[in-house]
C-alpha cells in the first residue's frame, strides 16, 4: 500500500490553493501535514478524500486514482474532517449505525463492526449518549470511529487535535499509534507541532500551496539549511572567542552572555563540529559546547514565511 501525490494542483479562480505538490508515503506510517493557515492543507486532504477534484495531477492510493476511480478510492480512505459531528437527536450508536448503512455494511456484520469500533475507540460506555451532549474529545473519537467503520487502509485526518485537552490528545495519540501499528497509512494535519513530532514518522511542510520540505522527521531535523543556536562556555577570554567566531563563514552572530557565548550557526551538525575543531585548533579552551535541540516547530518557523494568498 502506497499513497502517491503526483504533481497535484488545485486552482480556485486565480488562487492556486495547491501548486504542484508531490510526495509519497507508505502503509504503517504516520505523516504530519504542516503549513500555516491557508497553505492548502485542507484542500489537499479533501482531494485525497475524493471530495475535491484536482485541476491537474493525481493521487494514487494503492494504484487507484482519485480522479479516475473516485468510487474505488473512497473504499480505501477514511476521512476525518476538521468539523465535528453535529447531528441533533442522535445517539453515538445511531450515528455509527447510520454511517455503517451508508457504507453498505450489511446484515449481521453491521452490529459486529459497530461493536468492534466502539470498543476500539472506547465509545462502548457512551454509545447511547446523544451527540450534542459529548465533549470535543469524545466527538473527535466518534468522528474517528465513523472513519474507521469500513476498515480503510488509509486515514486522512484534518486537525484532529484542535481544541482537545491534554488527556484527550494523549488518548488520540495512542489510538493513532495503534492504527499505524495495524498497518494503516495516516496523513494528519495539525498546528500542534510538538504533538506531531511525537507521533509522526515523517512530515510534509507546505506554504501558499507549494511544497517546502518533505521527509522523515529525523531526516528533516538533521538536514542543512537550518539555523542552529549553539552555546559555548570557554574557560577564559570570551571576547577573543567572539572575535574568532565572527570571522568564521557560517556563524551569523555571536554574543557574549555572562561567561558564555551564544551563536547562531547557519548549517548542519557537520558545520557545528567544524566550528568546534577550528576553535580548539586556535587555542581556545572550551569547557562546554551545546547545541540547542531543533524541533519540528523550529523547522517550520525556518522554512515558512507565514504568507497567505
Amino acid at each position: 500500500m502506497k499513497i502517491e501525490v503526483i504533481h497535484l494542483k488545485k486552482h480556485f479562480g486565480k488562487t492556486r490553493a495547491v501548486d504542484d505538490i508531490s510526495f509519497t508515503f507508505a502503509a504503517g506510517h504516520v505523516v504530519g501535514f504542516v503549513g500555516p493557515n491557508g497553505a492548502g492543507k485542507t484542500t489537499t486532504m479533501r482531494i485525497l478524500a475524493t471530495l475535491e477534484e484536482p485541476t491537474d495531477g493525481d493521487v494514487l492510493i494503492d494504484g487507484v486514482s482519485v480522479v479516475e476511480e473516485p468510487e474505488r478510492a473512497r473504499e480505501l480512505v477514511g476521512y476525518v474532517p476538521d468539523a465535528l459531528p453535529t447531528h441533533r437527536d442522535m445517539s453515538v450508536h445511531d450515528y455509527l449505525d447510520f454511517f455503517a448503512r451508508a457504507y453498505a455494511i450489511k446484515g449481521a456484520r453491521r452490529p459486529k463492526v459497530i461493536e468492534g469500533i466502539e470498543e476500539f475507540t472506547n465509545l462502548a460506555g457512551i454509545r447511547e449518549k446523544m451527540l450534542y451532549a459529548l465533549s470535543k474529545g469524545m466527538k473527535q473519537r466518534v468522528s474517528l470511529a465513523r472513519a474507521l467503520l469500513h476498515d480503510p487502509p488509509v486515514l486522512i485526518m484534518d486537525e484532529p487535535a484542535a481544541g482537545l485537552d491534554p488527556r484527550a490528545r494523549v488518548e488520540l495519540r495512542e489510538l493513532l499509534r495503534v492504527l499505524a501499528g495495524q498497518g494503516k497509512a495516516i496523513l494528519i494535519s495539525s498546528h500542534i507541532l510538538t504533538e506531531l513530532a511525537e507521533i509522526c514518522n515523517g512530515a510534509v511542510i507546505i506554504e501558499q500551496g507549494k511544497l517546502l520540505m518533505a521527509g522523515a522527521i529525523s531526516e528533516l531535523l538533521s538536514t542543512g539549511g537550518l539555523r542552529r543556536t549553539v552555546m559555548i562556555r570557554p574557560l577564559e577570554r570570551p571576547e577573543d572567542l567572539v572575535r574568532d567566531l565572527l570571522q568564521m563563514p557560517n556563524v551569523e552572530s555571536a554574543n557574549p552572555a555572562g561567561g558564555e557565548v551564544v551563536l547562531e550557526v547557519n548549517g548542519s551538525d557537520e558545520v557545528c563540529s567544524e566550528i568546534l575543531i577550528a576553535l580548539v585548533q586556535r587555542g581556545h579552551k572550551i569547557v562546554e559546547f551545546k547545541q540547542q535541540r531543533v524541533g519540528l516547530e523550529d523547522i517550520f518557523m525556518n522554512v515558512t514565511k507565514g504568507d497567505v494568498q
Partner: protein
Amino acid sequence: MTSQGGVRSRLDDWLNPIVVKELRQAVHGKFVAAALLLLLVVQLAALGIYIVSNGDFAGRFDAGRNAFMFLLAILMAICLLFVPAYTSLRLAFERDTNVDLLFVTTIKPSAIVWGKLFAALTITVLIFSACMPFMVFTYWLRGIDLPSIFVLMAASFLVVAVAVQLATFVACLPAGRVLKVFLSLLALIMFLQAFIATLSWSYYSLSTGIGSRLGSWSFWGPALAVILIAAAVLGLLFSLSVAMIKPVSSNRALPVRLFVTVMWLVSGIASAVIAYVQRDNTALSVWSVLSVLVFAGAFFVAVSEREQLGPRVARKIPWSGLRLPAFFLFSGGASGVAWAALMSLLTYLTVSFLTASSVTLKAGGSIKETKVWVGGLALYGLAYSMTALLARRYLLARWIGTKYTWLVALLLLAAGCIIPFLIGYLVAFGSFNRAEDIGGWLVTNPFTLGIDSYQSTYLVFAGGWALLASVLNADWFIEQIHAFRPRELAVPPPGGSSELNL
C-alpha cells in the same frame, strides 16, 4: 437465524439509511411529537367547539361538510407549514455541515434526496392518520360521504408532497443565506396559495358532489391529469434537488435534462392523443406553451452553468459518434443553451408538423397563436439569457460570478417588462386605454405576445435580438464546443516526488 429474522434483516438492509436516520431522529426529538400532540388537541378542541356551538343538527345537512372543511384547514395549515419547514431546515443545516461525510460513503445523492422526501412523507402519513378519526367522524354529522373524505385527504396529501419536495429543492440550493431566506419566503407564499387553492377546490368539490362522480370519467379524467402534472412537478423538483446536491465534479445536468426530455416526450404524446380524441388542439397548445416556458427557464439556468468541465466529467465524454448527442446532456453553459434551443425548436416543429398533417388536430383553438407563443417565448428566453451572459462576461465579471448570471437575466427581464411600459404609458398619457395603444413600446416584454397587431414585430425583434446576442457570444460557444472532447488523463511524469524514507 430464523427465516423471519432473515427476511427482517434483508428488509433492514434494503432500507434507505437516510430514512432510518431521519425517522430515528424524529422519534428521539421532541419537535415532531409535540407538533403531533398539538395538532390532535387543536382538532379535538375545534370539533368540540363546533359541535357545542351548533347544537341542533336535526334539520341541517351541511354540518359534516362544514366541520370537515374546518378540520381540513387546520390539517393543511400544519402540514404545509410544519412538514416542509422541518424537512428543509434539517437538510439545509446538514447540507452546510455534514453532507461531505455522506459523499465519502457509498450513498448516492439521489438516495439522500429520496430519503429526506420519504421520511417527510412518512411523518405526513403519521399526521394524516392521527387526524383521520376526527375527519371520518364528520360523516356522522351529515353532509359528507366517506369516499369524498378519502378523496379530498388523498388530494391534500399530494399537495403536501409537492410542497415538501419544493422545500427540499430550496434547501438543496447552494445559495447564500440571504438568497435562501428570500427563496424560502417565495416558497411560503406559494404554500399559502396552495393552502387557499386546496381548501377552495375541496369546498367546491364537496358542494358539487364529488362523491357521486367517483365512478365516472368526468372525475377520473381531470384527476389523472392532476396526478400526472403533480408527478411531473415532483420528478422535476426531485431531479433538480439531486443535481444541486451532487458534487461539482459530477455531470449534474444529465439527470435533469434526461428527466425533462422524457417528460416532454411522454406528455407530448399524451397531449396529442387527448387532442386527437377530443378533436380539439387545446391539450397540444397547453403542452407546447408549458414546455417552451420550461425551456425558456432552462436558458437562464444554462448561462449560469460552469464553462469548463472537470477531469472526472471530461473523461466520460464518448469518442465515437455519440459525442454530438452527448454534448446536449453534459454539464456546461454552451451545452445547456444548445439543449434548451434544440428542445424549443423540436416543440415548435412538433406542433407545426402535427397540426399540418392532421385535420383533427387542427380543430379547436388558433394554432397560429400557439406557434407565436412557442416561438416568441423561446426567442425572448434566448435573447435575455445571451444578453445577460454578455453583460456578465464584459461588464460585470469583477462583481458577479458565472453561477449568478441567471440573476442578471432576471433583472434584465424585469427591466425589459417594466421600463418600456412606463415610458410608453407616459408618452401616451391621456390616450392610453389598453396595452395595444403602446404596443410598440412593449417590444422587450415577452408576456405581451398576445397583442395580435404587433405579433410579427415582436417575433422579428426577438429573433434579431437573440441572433445578435448569440453571435456576440460566439467565442464562448466555440471555446466550449472545442473543449468538449474526452480528456485522456495525463499520466503524471515520474520523478519529482518526495519519497518519504520512513
